[in-house]
């Protein structure tokens, strides 16, 4: 009887470790532009279709008249809160196809978050401060990340298998809005490099100009 108990424990332990190991795999992604400079704020995700989530919330802050962070990625169905941590009021809006919304002039926390239930890019801005601009990217997966200043990002806890890894960036040239690569995940960490050609994108001018003779 003891032999059967030991065997059962052995198989349970082995399957647990195997299962854990198979999810410990990851993809290290580097995103660079045509000149090999690191690209920050690239959204990197695994292409798959998961049902939309509910009750998942994320924060996009407003500090010193800027949205923080500049790029946010969420799974479809997520709610985003837009607290205003400036001591002034902001008016946040978006005209994007994936989500049109407006938070009329407010300070502090808006009464309710905004739910994003359609895939795609949402460009948002503030109607009072024209230079304030940020992007939300809504995807059908929970496996996503954003590149840091060094253009680096890691997709972790992936099971073994074949994946399509997609990269999106707000400044990517039209032809490269979505840049995808196939990858077979085995044990350990794998590496991918994405080259995302960048177009110049401008925010409204914020720095002060000459104040002479031009009243507020």
């Amino acid at each position: 009887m003891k032999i059967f108990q030991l065997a059962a424990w052995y198989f349970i332990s082995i399957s647990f470790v195997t299962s854990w190991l198979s999810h410990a795999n990851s993809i290290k992604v580097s995103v660079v532009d045509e000149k090999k400079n690191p690209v920050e704020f690239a959204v990197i995700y695994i292409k798959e279709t998961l049902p939309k989530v509910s009750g998942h919330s994320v924060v996009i802050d407003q500090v010193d008249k800027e949205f923080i962070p500049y790029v946010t990625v969420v799974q479809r169905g997520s709610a985003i809160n837009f607290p205003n941590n400036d001591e002034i009021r902001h008016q946040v809006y978006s005209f994007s196809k994936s989500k049109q919304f407006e938070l009329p002039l407010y300070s502090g926390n808006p009464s309710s978050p905004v739910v994003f239930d359609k895939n795609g890019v949402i460009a948002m801005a503030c109607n009072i401060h024209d230079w304030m601009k940020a992007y939300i990217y809504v995807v059908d997966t929970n496996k996503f990340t954003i590149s840091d200043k060094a253009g680096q990002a890691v997709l972790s806890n992936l099971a073994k298998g074949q994946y399509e890894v997609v990269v999106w960036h707000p400044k990517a040239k039209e032809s490269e809005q979505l840049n995808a690569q196939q990858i077979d995940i085995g044990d350990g960490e794998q590496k991918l490099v994405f080259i995302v050609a960048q177009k110049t994108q401008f925010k409204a001018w914020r720095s002060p100009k000459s104040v002479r003779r031009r009243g507020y």
Partner: protein
Amino acid sequence: MKMILAVPVTIIILSTPVVAQQGEWVEWIADAELSYAAIDNLNLSAFSDDTHSDKRVALDGIVGRFYQFNGFTRMSLSLELDVEKHQEFDSLDNRQLGANVGVRHKFGLGFYQPYLQFNVNYRHQEVEWDANSIDITFTTLEFGQHINNQLSLAASIDFTATTGNERPVIVPELASDVFDQRFIHFSVFVDYILSQEWLLSASYSRRQGDFNSSCSQANVAKVLEVEQVKAITKDDVFGGCVYKLEGNSNIYSASLGYSLSNHAGLNFVVEHYQGKAEVLDYQRTSYSLSFNYRY
């Protein structure tokens, strides 16, 4: 003046959404500009043998606050203090203390919505040579819009009135109030973002109305012969006469701004003034470099 006030106020009230939210005081205004300028023909003389050039340092400061009526309309109240120090003609050193009220209205939600801005500004300019001190009042109405992510256009009209001190009469049949002037500027402004650090701006202003010019005693007779001089008096700064004319002027300006941060920038400005009365031409060019800080 009532008409000037009535037009923008009516437009703003009519286009403000009916459900206006409660307004409140919002951002503080705290701007400073330190500039150095080289000015040729400071006295705006019409005679090439009679021009004086100079350099000046100026420190301008503005403090105030915005009042946000709703998502589309805001008002600014500010106090302005400017100090100018000339290198050679130190009798033109001056201090200006002024106040400005502005109302800016954006016609809807979105980056490309145009705006209308109305400003009333009063300032007292106290010049080292007190006879040249003046009070300045100007009213500006500006309309502008972002055309795309790089290009913004604006057009404005402003009415300026200046009042000077009592000056001695030197030509009996002419007045001496050379610094009592009325003039209008029609201006267009173009801002073009070259990169997130560099901004190219240009403007053209058509000035109609009074302006003043100085010349040496030797040239006064020539001026009186060909120009419709409205007022003349002695000029203690440049040593000749200063006189008032009515005419049209073209003012061309170009500037290149460099963003040091969200709150600070450097600006290089070139401005060319090209005035014309009956016969004579009055030209001045200035180059200035400034450091600007905005809170």
